[in-house]
Each structure stands twice: as structure tokens, then as C-alpha cells.
């Protein structure tokens, strides 16, 4: 009886999970593109329901396959957490964007689910980190609404950012790279948080000064950030900083020649990095000819390709694959693990949700009146989607593998915290600008009524 049930649950849940995810993605698209406010509101509520069903199916599946009832506790925790996240945020900030909030819940819920499947102990840590991150971030919109000093701290951002990166660079090596910093058992990856500081620095500087001299200064300081990151072998973050800088530069100057300069400079920098640094060369070699170096430099990427190809469109089913064959699967290559067990259809849906988040941020950035905040939201959107592109594209051999995390989904405290902060900053700015515009509307409409 037990065996019979197990088979049916595994087989059925495989298709049900894919279908539920498809449904959620469909609703997300409606929310993003529909102009009908009522429809969007209904879809958002439906989404929250579908989201909980999805989590239920995943954890039910894992409980049956593993026979461990611990998974049910985890499910209870996730359900409560997601439920509170949605209700608390909407109660405290009634202007908060439901569309972005839902997608955020889905991604972090999925992340918890996949990390639970990969490792029980890590899942536990991830739960605590997520909870703490959420608690911290809940205050962000409030702070943004009250205070205006964020645009004045530009040298603080730059100073703290560079010092933090330098500390890591001089610290101990982990896995051949200076990326993390450990104090009393807690491991940080400062580049994740510095990412946000850097963004605020560039936005604050370029929003204030637009002449060539200051653009040059901004380029030199950004260059310092990028070079420190390359030296500490954090190539993915270096690329993210680089791309974010140029996009923000264009955003604040509207001069597309910088795009060409950026592309040319980027190309030269890539060639130089390839020739100077061995760790860059290794990545390129593994990308160009993975099957020749399968037991060495390209081991990680080929194992990732095996995982993706073995999953097919509907996946092997939760806990039916071998994601641990891929080195660092829980951080850099979690997308491949997702492809293997959930299937390609599901994985494409997740990517679509990521794109929806990005699109939503761009949509918000369009209506934000304050130039500084507009740049910040735009920058966060670009950083987010570019990071997704780097990690997913790297894992599927679309581009060379650089080893960055998939925001919300990968295991890792710094990554989860920084992504939460970024999303809540966007929410905070959006709430603030909505209120500001509303007050503007009220000012504008009053005289009108008098005229009529």
C-alpha cells in the first residue's frame, strides 16, 4: 500500500507541480501586463493561493519519497512564513506592490524548498537567515519614507564598500577565491552587500554631478571596485558591478556613446583579464571545450549539463535525481538542480518569474518622479536580472560560468539578505513615490475644481 501510494504521488506530483507553476506564471504575466486594476487584484490573490498549493505539493512529494515527516514541519514553517510575509507587508504598507511581493514570496519559497531537498541542515540555517532578513527588511520602506539623507552619503558608500572588499581580499582563501569573510562561525560574502552600497554611490554621484570630470572620477572609483573583485577571483560580481555602472551612467547622462565606450572597454578588459589571470582562462577554456577537460576544469559545467539533460521537460521528480554530483550545486548551480528534478518547463517558468520581477521594477522606475530614486530602482533591476542571467547562462553553457548565486533561490545568507534588501528598497521607493504623486495630484486638482 505504502509503495503503491508512493509511486502515484511521485508520478502525479511531477505533473501537478509543473502545472501549478505554469498556472502561477500565467497569473504573473496577467498581473504584469493587464491594465485592468480589478483583474490584477484578483490575480494577485489567486497567485497567493496557487503559491501555497505549489509549496504543499513539493513538500508532500518530498515527505512521501523520503519517508521523513520532518518535511511536514518545514512545510508548516514555510506556509506560515509566506502567509505572514504577504499579510504583514500588505497591512503595514498598504501601497506596497502586490505583484512584486508575490513573486518575491514564490522565489524565496522555492529557494527554501530546493535547499531543503539538497540538505536538511543547510535548510535549517537558510530558514533562519530568511526569517531574519525579512524582519530587517520590513523596516526599509519606513526608513526610506522618513529620511532623505541617502543621496548625501556617497563617500560613505564608496569608502565602506572598498574597505569591505579589501578586507576580504587580504583574508583567507576559500575554494581558491577570496570571496567570503568569517567571524565567529558566521560567513559573510561582502560583495553581495557592497553591491548595494556601490549602486547607491554611483546613483548619488551621477545624480548630482553630470559633467565629464565627475564621470571620470566615478569611472575610476568603479574601476577600483571591479579590479578588487577580479583580484579576489569574484568574476561574477565584477561583471555585475561593471554592467551596472555603465547602465546607470547612461541612465543619468542619456549619452549612448558611453554604451559603446563600455562595450569597447569591457572587451579590452576581458581580453586583458584572459591573458593576465589564469582563473579567467580556465573559465573560458571550460566554456569553449568542456568535453575535453571533463575531468578537470570543466567538471562542474559538464556535471551541470548532465543534470539538465537528464531532467527533460518534466524532470526526474523531486529527490529522484543526483544534484549533488554537481560541485557547489546549492550556490552556483542551483538552477541545474532545479532543471533536473522539476524539469525544464518548471525552470523556464521560474526564469519567466525573474523576468517579471525585472519588468515590474522597470515599470516602477518609469513612474518614479525623483531622479535619484529612479536611478536606484533602475540599477537594482539591472543588477538583479543580470545576476540571474550570469548564473543561469553560466550553468547551461550559454556563457562562461562565473559562479554567482541565483537570487532568492541559492543557498547563502549574504545573497538572501542582499536580495531581500534590494527588493524592499524598491518597494520603499515605490511606496514613497506613490504617496508623493498622490499629494501632487491633490494639489493640482484643487485649483481645477475652482475654475470649473
Amino acid at each position, binding site marked *: 500500500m505504502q509503495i503503491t501510494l508512493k509511486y502515484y504521488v511521485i508520478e502525479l506530483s511531477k505533473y501537478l507541480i509543473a502545472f501549478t507553476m505554469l498556472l502561477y506564471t500565467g497569473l504573473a504575466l496577467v498581473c504584469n501586463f493587464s491594465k485592468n486594476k480589478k483583474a490584477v487584484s484578483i490575480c494577485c490573490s489567486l497567485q497567493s493561493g496557487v503559491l501555497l498549493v505549489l509549496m504543499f505539493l513539493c513538500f508532500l512529494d518530498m515527505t512521501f519519497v523520503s519517508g521523513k515527516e520532518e518535511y511536514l514541519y518545514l512545510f508548516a514553517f514555510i506556509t506560515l512564513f509566506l502567509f505572514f510575509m504577504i499579510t504583514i507587508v500588505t497591512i503595514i504598507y498598504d501601497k506596497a506592490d502586490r505583484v512584486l511581493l508575490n513573486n518575491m514570496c514564490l522565489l524565496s519559497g522555492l529557494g527554501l524548498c530546493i535547499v531543503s531537498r539538497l540538505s536538511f541542515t543547510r535548510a535549517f540555517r537558510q530558514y533562519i537567515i530568511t526569517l531574519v532578513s525579512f524582519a530587517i527588511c520590513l523596516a526599509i520602506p519606513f526608513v526610506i519614507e522618513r529620511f532623505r539623507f541617502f543621496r548625501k552619503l556617497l563617500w560613505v558608500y564608496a569608502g565602506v564598500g572598498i574597505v569591505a572588499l579589501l578586507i576580504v581580499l587580504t583574508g583567507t582563501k576559500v575554494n581558491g577565491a577570496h570571496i567570503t569573510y568569517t567571524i565567529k562561525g558566521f560567513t559573510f560574502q561582502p560583495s553581495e552587500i557592497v553591491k548595494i552600497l556601490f549602486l547607491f554611490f554611483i546613483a548619488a554621484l551621477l545624480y548630482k554631478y553630470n559633467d565629464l570630470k565627475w564621470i571620470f572620477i566615478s569611472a575610476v572609483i568603479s574601476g577600483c571596485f571591479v579590479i578588487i573583485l577580479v583580484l579576489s577571483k569574484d568574476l561574477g560580481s565584477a561583471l555585475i558591478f561593471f554592467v551596472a555602472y555603465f547602465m546607470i551612467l547612461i541612465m543619468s547622462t542619456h549619452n549612448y556613446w558611453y554604451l559603446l565606450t563600455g562595450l569597447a572597454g569591457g572587451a579590452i578588459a576581458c581580453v586583458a583579464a584572459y591573458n593576465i589571470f589564469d582563473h579567467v582562462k580556465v573559465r573560458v577554456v571550460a566554456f569553449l571545450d568542456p568535453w575535453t577537460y*571533463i575531468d578537470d576544469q570543466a567538471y562542474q559545467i559538464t556535471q551541470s549539463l548532465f543534470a539538465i539533460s537528464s531532467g527533460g521537460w518534466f524532470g526526474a521528480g523531486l529527490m529522484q535525481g543526483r544534484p549533488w554530483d554537481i560541485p557547489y550545486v546549492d550556490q552556483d548551480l542551483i538552477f541545474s538542480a532545479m532543471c533536473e528534478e522539476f524539469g525544464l518547463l518548471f525552470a523556464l517558468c521560474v526564469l519567466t518569474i525573474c*523576468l517579471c520581477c525585472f519588468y515590474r521594477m522597470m515599470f516602477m522606475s518609469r513612474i518614479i518622479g525623483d531622479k535619484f530614486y*529612479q536611478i536606484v530602482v533602475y540599477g537594482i533591476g539591472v543588477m538583479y536580472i*543580470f545576476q540571474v542571467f550570469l548564473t543561469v547562462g553560466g550553468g547551461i553553457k550559454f556563457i562562461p560560468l562565473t559562479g554567482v548565486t541565483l537570487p532568492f533561490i541559492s543557498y547563502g545568507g549574504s545573497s538572501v539578505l542582499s536580495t531581500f534588501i534590494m527588493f524592499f528598497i524598491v518597494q520603499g521607493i515605490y511606496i514613497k513615490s506613490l504617496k508623493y504623486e498622490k499629494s501632487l495630484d491633490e494639489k493640482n486638482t484643487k485649483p481645477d475644481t475652482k475654475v470649473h
Partner: protein
Amino acid sequence: MKKIRNLIQKYIDSSPRYKSMVLINVTVAIFCALFFGMFIYLGIFVSTSTMELYDNSYNNRQELQEQNVLRGTIYASGGEILAESRIDENGVERRYYPYGSVFAHAVGYSVNGRMGIEDYANYYLMHSGATLSERVDNDLENVKDPGYNVMSTLDVNLQQVADDYLGLYNGAVIVTEVKTGRILALVSHPNFNPGSIKEDWEAITSDPKGSQLLNRATQGLYPPGSTFKIITALAFYKQNPDTWEDYRFECTGNIMHDDYRISCIYGTVHGDLDLISSFAKSCNSSFVNIGLSLDRDMWADTMDDLYFNRRLPTDLLANYGRAYVGAASTDYDIMQTSIGQGKTTLTPLHLNMITQAIANGGEMMKPYLIDEIVDENGNVIRSFSPESAGMVISPDEAEFLTELMTAVCEYGTARVLVNDNYTVAGKTGTAEFANDINESHAWFTAFAPAEDPEICVTIIIEKAGTGVEYAVPLAKRIFDAYFGV
């Protein structure tokens, strides 16, 4: 053009706010395009690479499958079992090969690496089509799900005839169906017993002369000897389409050119010859004479059309023939190449494919070993239909070569094949690689019936002497077996 200029002007004149909007839209478009590209790439990757990557030895997912699936059975085209997995009395899973070493290279093995059909169909053999309820039942009874079965193209009768006759000689035999490219028999000697490959592995791999694992039929590179005169004759025909019938040569038993001498086999004086009799009697002197008269670039093109020096159109693990004529060739090289000696090499499979194309009116068919993949209830999961590799020669050229090859078997070197039941068209060859003629490789490649070809046979017997004496009688046995004489 003007429109674009107006648009640009409109953009330049617009407000900073509008410009920001434009940039935001551009950014959205860029990332959507990048992701769209990634979606397509992923879709194509997953739908095309699953089988190939599954077979990679670094992919440990095979272990997952081995826990749940009992490797499928391989059948001959007549339904005979060629390989099957059974659980022996000790509960150990073993692979059984009822015909022992007869199908060694064709069916192959699946432990200590893989070969043959065991390799080509590995993905299917290790995947099960069992329905959900069957899987539940299997799990309850504690048996594995049955993997898909493979219906091969191999014919037990022909394979055994070829294997028997080849006996203790080293060499290879390959028999294909002319119209489809299905491989009916594929023998390579020396062979091995796939059922005990694990136990014999040490002995096989440590044997210094041991090349039992080499599939000579598909990978063995031999000097083609006189069988290469097919290609020389074809090049001559292509370059002299109207005048080839006027070709005359007076054979004196050898030919001299620039101090190099090439002799006919046993020093035979063939006398007055035209092209057909030169070919039928396999006169070396005449063909050296022909080769020296050929335009080298056109000759090289002819060889290129026949897949020399490039990958053969087949999924089998195979080597292609190597031959070079061109500006760098000396006259002596040309003289050697004309009669298939010197640096020229060919695999039996490649020669078989050329012969098959001639028999099939110029269209080469991709040779293949697997007809169908079926589940344990006999439902067809996938069927492999014949695939063309293109017209490698024209129908007219095929007819010309058939005429030449028919002459070989009517009054030429293979006239022992004359019989009442079927006609044969073929070419013998004696590939010399040492001074002693008895140390030569015997070649024969042929198809029958000559007027409406059905099967195509290519044979090489190492160090057996001349093709006439050793390879032709084996071909006769195979044809007799096929036509039920």
C-alpha cells in the same frame, strides 16, 4: 531614411524624462532578448542532448537507472535472442550472449565500457517503458522494470556462415542490404566472448598482439589493393565520358615509368586489353597507365564524393578511407595509388558503402544496425528507417561500374562465381603489404543479383594470399546462404 532622421531628432529634442523612458524600454528589450535566446538554447539542448549525455561515462545517473531497470534484450532480425540479462541462481544479474563470440563486435558488450549495439542503444536498453501500475507491481515483487528491447538488423544465418568460414583467419566480413543500408552481418576476427569479457579483460588488454577488441569491419584500415581500381576506373570514366570505350593497352606483364616498375600479379602477361578487360583481369600495368593519364584534381574530387578523407555518413564508430592524389604526389605515388597500394587505406565498411552505392544506382545509404526499439509488450517506441547519404555517383556511372564488376564475375578474376541461380558483380583485390604474395590480404567486394541487386558483401581476409583464392569462395557461401541455394 528621412523617417529615421526625424525620429532621432525627435529623441534629441525630447525631455530628460522621456529619454529615461526610452532607455528603460531599451534595457527591458535587451534582457528579454537575452533570456529569450537562453530559453531557445535550453529547449534545443534538452530535446537533443539527453541520449548523448546519458551515455557519457562521467554521468553517474546511469547508476540510478541500473538500480531500477533490467537491461533490455537484443534480438536478431529473425527474432533470435542475441543478448539478454537474467538473474542467475545466486541472485546476481548477468548478461547472456547465446551465440557466444559469433556476434562479438556487432552486438558488443556492456561491462568494462561498451561496444556495438550495446553501446549504440544503451540509452534505450537502460530505460523502461513500464507503466505506473507495472512499476508498482514490479516493486512489490522486488524485480526491476524491463528496459526497452532492440530489434537489430542482423541475420543469424549469414553471420554464422561468415564467422565459420573466416575461422582462424584474421579479417572482417560485412553484409548489407543494398536498398536500405541495413547491416545483415558484421564479423571481425580475432574476436572475443562478450559473456565473459569481465573475466577475460586482463588477458585481452594485456596481450601485446591482441587486437580482439578492434572492430576490423568498421575501423580496420587496410591497403585496398585492386579493389581500389573501382575508383580509378570511375575517375577515368568521368574524365573520358565519350572516349573510354576506345581505351586500349598492351600488357607485357609490367609497366615502367621514370625508372619505377610495377608488375601484374604473378607477372601475368594480359596482352591486348580494353578498359573492361583490364578491370575484369585486374591488370595492374593497365591501371597504372590509366592513373598516370588522369587529371589529379578531378580524381581527388571523385574520391571526395565517395567520402575519402572525411567522416563517413554513419552513426557507427568507424574509420574512413584515406587516399591522396594532388600536386604533392610524385608519379610513383600516382602509380601506387592507381592500384590501391602505397599510402592508400580503406576500411571494409567504407568499401562496402561504395559498393552498395554502385549497386543502388549511385545512392549511398547510411549503414545501420538497429531496426526498432520496442517495449516488452512489443509496442514500437522508435523505428529507424533507411537514410540516404546522397547520390555519390550518377546512375550512369553506377551502371558503368556494374558492367565492369559483372565482367569480373563472368570471365574475370572471380569467374568461379558463375552459377545458374544468381549473377554477381564484384571486384577482387590482393593487398600487398610485404614482399611475399602469400602474406597478402585477400579482398572481395560484390553485390548480387547484378541486374537487380539485393545484398552487398565485402570481405577481407588477412595474410591469406589472393582475393581470388580465399575471399571469393566465402562470398559465394554468403550469397548461397542468402539466396537459399
